C-alpha cells in the first residue's frame, strides 16, 4: 500500500515535469526565452522530486520485501 502511494506520487511528479517541459517548449518556440527557461527550471525541480521519491520506493522494497 505504501509502495503504491509512493509510486503514484512519482508518476504525478514526473507527469507534472513533462507538462512544464511542454509549456516551456511552447514559450521557447514563440521566442519568449525567459518564460521558457523558468518553466524548464520548474520542470527539472518536479522531475528531481519524482526521482528522489522513486529512490525511496526502491530502497523501501529491499528493506521490506
Amino acid at each position: 500500500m505504501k509502495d503504491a502511494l509512493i509510486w503514484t506520487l512519482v508518476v504525478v511528479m514526473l507527469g507534472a515535469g513533462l507538462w512544464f517541459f511542454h509549456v516551456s517548449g511552447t514559450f521557447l518556440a514563440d521566442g519568449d526565452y525567459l518564460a521558457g527557461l523558468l518553466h524548464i527550471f520548474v520542470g527539472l525541480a518536479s522531475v528531481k522530486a519524482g526521482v528522489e521519491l522513486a529512490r525511496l520506493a526502491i530502497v523501501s522494497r529491499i528493506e521490506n520485501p
Partner: protein
Amino acid sequence: MTRGTLAGLGLGLSALLLGLPLAHLERVAINEPTPAVIVYLLTLLPLPALIAAVHSLHPRFTLFLFPVSHLPALVVEPRLLGPLVYSGGAGFLAQGLICVAFALWIVMVLRAPNREDSAPESPGWLAALGDGGGLVYYPVAILAAFVTAALADSTPGAPGHAQVTILSGALVAGWVGVRWIDGELMRLNQDIERKRRMFAELLVVRRFSPSVFWTFSGVAFALGSLLALVYGGVT
C-alpha cells in the same frame, strides 16, 4: 554503461533518424503528398530491434539488426533523407547530431561487457514502473514534449525558435536521463540487486543444516535418556 543508457541512446538515435524527420516532413510537405501510413509503421521497426539489441548485447543485434532496421522506412520514403528535411544550417546540424549519435552507439556497444563474461545484470529496466525500470524511457518523453511544442504549437516560419526549443529539449532530456534516471535510479537498482545476490549466497554458505540438527538432537535425546535411566530413573 548500463542497459538503460544504451536503450535511451538507441531511442534517441531512432528519433533523430526517423521520428523527427518524419514529423518535420509532415509540416513542410505543403504541395506534396504526405507520407503513407506504411512509413509510420516502418518507423516503429527499430523498436523491437532495439529491445533485442539491449537485451542480448550480441553484435548481430547491436551492430547489424538495429542499424539496418532503420533502412525500410528510409527506402520507402526517400524524402526523409532529402533536402526537404536536411537543408541549410539546421539540416547540417541535424546531420552532425545523427553522426555523433551513431558514433556514440558504436562506442558504447563495443565497450559493453560480454554477456558470458559479466554477472547477469538486473532485468529491472524491462519491468513495469514498480521496479523503476520503465523510467528509462522518461527522457524520450521529455524530448517528445519539447518536440511537440516546437512542431505542433509553434508559429510556422520561425525555425530559429523551434531549433532552440528542440536543442533545449535534447539538453534537458540528456541531463535527466544520464544524471538522474541512469546515474541515481538504475545504478541504485543494480546495486541493490547485487547486494541481494550476495546476501542470498551468504545465507546458502551459512545455511541451517538438517543433518547436523537431527544428529545432535538424537545424541542428546539418547544420551539424556540413558543417563536418566542409569542415575535417576531406576528406583
